[in-house]
Each structure stands twice: as C-alpha cells, then as structure tokens.
C-alpha cells in the first residue's frame, strides 16, 4: 500500500531524528563544553565531580543506541506485518515509540533541574544581581504569533463543535479536545509565566543568556500550541474525508515536529560560542 510506504519513510525519519541526530547534537555540545570549559577553570558550572558528567554522557549515548535499535526492530516488524496483512498501521505505534524516545530527554531534564539546585545550594555569595527592566510577554513573542495561537485554539474547539456538538461527557470528542487542549495550553502558560516572573534556575547565568533562552523557549511553546491545534484539526479532517490510513504518518510527522520546534530550536538558537561562560569561573 503506498500510504504504508509513506509511513515507513516518515517513521524512519522519526527513528533517526529523535534517537540519533538530536542525541548526537546534545552529546557533541556537552563534550565541547567539558573540553573548552573544564571543571578546574569553571568550577561553578560543575556542582558534581567530573566523572559524573562523563558517565552521564556514556549512559545517555547507550540509552539512545538501545532505543535506536528498538526503533529499527519496530520498523522491520511493521514492514513484515504490512506485507503479510496489507492492513492499516495503528497511529499509536509512532506515539508509543516517541514516548520511549523521550525517556533519555526527560532524564536529561531531571538531571538539569538537580544540577541547578546544587548550583544554587553551592552559591554562598552574598551578592545578588538583577536587571531593572520588566520582562513582558511581547518582548519575547510577536503579537501576531500570540494572536495566531489564540485563533488556532478557538478554531480547533469550534471545528470540533461543528462536527460533534458539545456535551460535558467523556465520550464527547469536543469535550475531550477542549479539556486536553486547554490543559496543554495552561501548562505552556505556567512555563511562560515561570520565564517571565520566576526565579533564576541557574544562579550564575548571564542576563543576556537568560533572555536568549527565554525567547527561544517562549516562541517554541507558542509555535507548539499552534501546531498542536493544527494537527488536531487535520487529523479530524482526515477522518471526515476517509483518509484514515494517513493518520499514522501524520502522527509521526507531528511528533518529530514537536522535537524540532522544542529541542531543535533551543540547540539552533542558543549557540555555544555565544554563551558567557566567564560567570562560571572561580571568583566571578
């Protein structure tokens, strides 16, 4: 079936992009930081012994290799199943695999949190600095993108309402989409408020670096919200047009896009050579 060939190409891209390309980028970046900014010269950057970071790199690499191998296994299994049955591929397969692919990233995020916590605990300096400029939402995101995110959210709910009506019941599709999309956007809002008003996670981070990180994260969240609404509308539209067999491909493409928009944007926009590492020197 041609739609399954399309799925195979997109799914292969999902396997390679999330379990090979981006992990390699992360590892190359970490290795570059460890090499150019060693713990003896930049002690504030490393609240744990050097070996902890090198071991962490190895574990991250192994975890991604295992998931990559699992992906290839799944890819072959789907191919065999496809040729033997010529059936439709369940769109939950790329989603379930994406969840597994996300485990190393999630662990990395948790390690980041604990690292910043240790950095804050180790920071005994009595001097605290801040910039006397307000951080406002539109300093980080254009009103156009903000408006588009709101428009897409409302459009998505109205689209479902026009097809399924609205009932406060777990079996009503409009209700499910309304609750899930609202919860997702509320989570994004909480993260954005954290960037605008929250405490500094890294106690030593330079103001410009913090701003760059906030701009990249906030923009990504708004784009993700737009893409999520668009994806839901497209999926439902496909069902209405009886194009269900493309749903697995669309799901895989969407999941890859979330990583490109999230992690990809952060790696692209925050260049290592532009980060001020001097703040992590002893006595800085």
């Amino acid at each position: 079936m041609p739609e399954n060939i399309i799925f195979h190409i997109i799914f292969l891209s999902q396997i390679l992009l999330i379990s090979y390309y981006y992990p390699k980028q992360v590892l190359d970046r970490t290795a570059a930081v460890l090499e150019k900014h060693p713990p003896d010269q930049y002690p504030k950057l490393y609240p744990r012994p050097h070996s902890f970071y090198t071991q962490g790199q190895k574990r991250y690499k192994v975890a991604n290799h295992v998931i990559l191998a699992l992906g290839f296994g799944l890819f072959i299994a789907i191919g065999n199943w496809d040729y033997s049955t010529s059936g439709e591929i369940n769109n939950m397969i790329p989603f379930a695999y994406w969840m597994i692919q996300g485990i190393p990233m999630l662990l990395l995020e948790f390690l980041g949190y604990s690292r910043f916590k240790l950095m804050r605990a180790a920071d005994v300096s009595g001097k605290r600095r801040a910039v006397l400029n307000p951080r406002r939402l539109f300093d980080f995101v254009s009103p156009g993108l903000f408006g588009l995110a709101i428009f897409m959210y409302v459009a998505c709910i109205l689209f479902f309402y026009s097809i399924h009506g609205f009932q406060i019941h777990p079996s009503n599709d409009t209700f499910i989409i309304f609750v899930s999309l609202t919860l997702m956007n509320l989570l994004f809002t909480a993260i954005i408020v954290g960037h605008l008003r929250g405490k500094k996670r890294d106690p030593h981070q330079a103001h410009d670096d913090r701003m760059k990180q906030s701009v990249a994260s906030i923009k990504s969240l708004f784009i993700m919200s737009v893409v999520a609404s668009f994806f839901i509308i497209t999926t439902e539209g496909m069902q209405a047009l009886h194009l269900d067999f493309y749903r697995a491909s669309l799901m895989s493409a969407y999941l890859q896009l979330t990583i490109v928009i999230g992690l990809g944007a952060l790696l692209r926009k925050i260049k290592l050579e532009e980060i001020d590492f001097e703040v992590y020197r002893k006595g800085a």
Partner: protein
Amino acid sequence: MDITIDIDNSTPLFTQLMNQIKEAILNNSLNPGAALPSIRQLANDLDLNNKTVAKAYRLLERDSIIQAKGYRGTFIHPDAKENCAVDLNEWVTEKLTETITSFRSSGVTDSEIRIAFGNVMHNRNN
C-alpha cells in the same frame, strides 16, 4: 541597568534597593517614564521576599520617585530626579529639632516632651 544587593551588608535590603534606584535616576541610567520590573519579578531575580521589594517600592512611591499605574506596571515618576534630592529623614529631623528647641525655650521639660510625643504617636489624644 543592573542592581546589586549585598545580603551580608548591615544596611537593610529595602534601603539598598531604594538607594540604588535613586542612584540610577540621578546618574540618568533610569529616565522619567522608564518601566520598572514587577515586585514579583524583582523579588525572584534577587531571591528576596516579595514584601522587601514591595516596601522599597511603597517608600519610593511615597517620595514620588516612582509611580504605580495599576495593571500597566510601575514607572519612574516624571519629577523623580528632583524628588530624589529630597531626604525625608533629614527633613523630619530638622523639623523635630526646631519644634523641640521651641518647646524647651518655652520651659517644657524633656520628659513632658517625650510623653506628649508618645501620646501623639499613639493617637491617645486624637
């Protein structure tokens, strides 16, 4: 415009904050109409209690150095530079010295002044 708070310094944190905002106004780092961060943002950035920043902002607003414009935020007062030169503590000390001197010259004893001052401060006669 950067602000630095030294928590080991004996000067109260809210006073350090007020003094640095005043200094920034006097050396033109902060101009009239410039927006200031919200209390919560500044408190989180400096890792201080919200009440400390709120107290500094309240006293600066009382002295017409900053002005709160509701949901729009807090801004530097148009007359901030002139008002920065006014030291209310010095003015109070000067006025009290004048008043106490006139009481003494009228024969009022120090203990009578203290009692009367205490009564006025505690609104006992009002």
